[in-house]
């Protein structure tokens, strides 16, 4: 649906358009809420965000994109909750390297060279890889198992193509941490592709 048409319908109070909006953005908003406040409060935060969207949509000005507006709302709700709960969600996925990951020390010799050759891929064309249905399933599965902050950073950057600056403010993390999160997520997905190239499964 064209964004301008959608916005016009939403402002006019069209219920069907609002349900469409929910179906389009619920998953994204949920991953952002999870990244900021964790699993326990995420559902509630998104539910509250929809109430806020519903109440304020009439005053929506097209200065920002609808997506940016929605992301800001869920981010602000989650940050407010975080302050209320006065606890910090530790980005523990930033501490040290995950064992078995590409950056694990055991993958490198003392001088920093690769311990083993980097796995070669028989399929290197993205178009061909996108045709592989099983691979899509594997990637989706892995994406859903990533630590929440990694998942949200990765989706915002590589799928939603948001700027690092925006991702920092949405997720409430520093610029360097966002980069680390995105890199880690990519490396994990790359390992999934490694395994798929070798075995044809996850």
């Amino acid at each position, binding site marked *: 649906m064209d964004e301008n048409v959608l916005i016009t319908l939403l402002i006019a109070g069209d219920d069907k358009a609002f349900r469409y909006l929910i179906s389009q953005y*619920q998953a994204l908003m949920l991953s952002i809420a999870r990244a900021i406040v964790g699993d326990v409060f995420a559902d509630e935060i998104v*539910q509250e965000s929809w109430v806020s969207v*519903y109440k304020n949509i009439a005053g929506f000005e097209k200065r920002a994109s609808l997506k940016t507006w929605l992301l800001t709302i869920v981010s602000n709700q989650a940050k407010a909750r975080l302050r209320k709960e006065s606890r910090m969600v530790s980005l523990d996925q930033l501490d040290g390297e995950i064992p078995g990951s590409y950056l694990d020390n055991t993958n490198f010799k003392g001088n920093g060279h690769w311990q083993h050759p980097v796995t070669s891929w028989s399929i290197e064309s*993205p178009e061909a890889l*996108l045709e592989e249905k099983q691979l899509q399933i594997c990637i989706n599965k892995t994406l859903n198992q990533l630590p929440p902050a990694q998942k949200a950073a990765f989706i915002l950057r590589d*799928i939603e193509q948001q700027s690092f600056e925006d991702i920092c403010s949405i997720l409430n993390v520093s610029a360097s941490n966002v980069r680390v999160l995105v890199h880690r997520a990519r490396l994990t997905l790359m390992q999934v592709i490694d395994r798929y190239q070798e075995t044809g499964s996850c």
Partner: protein
Amino acid sequence: MLSCKQVASLASQYLDKDTSTPLNWQIRLHLLMCANCRRFVRHLKITRTLAKNIELTDNAIDTETIWKHLQEKIQQEKSKNENNHSPENKSQE
């Protein structure tokens, strides 16, 4: 000269054109000489391209339930505002 480990850690930044010019050159120099890191960076780039085009299968979003909750909440708030004087005796959920 950068080590492979350093290149591997910087690879995303390099692909996102987010490295300083001197660092960028150091990485390129390493890539010229190291087939493993070339492959690594190439694969990471493919991964990124793949991600851009991936069809996300979201675990069944129940739009109708979310919508119903939303309507209930809006109704609650409305009646709260209308009956500000009378105590709230209906509790939902």
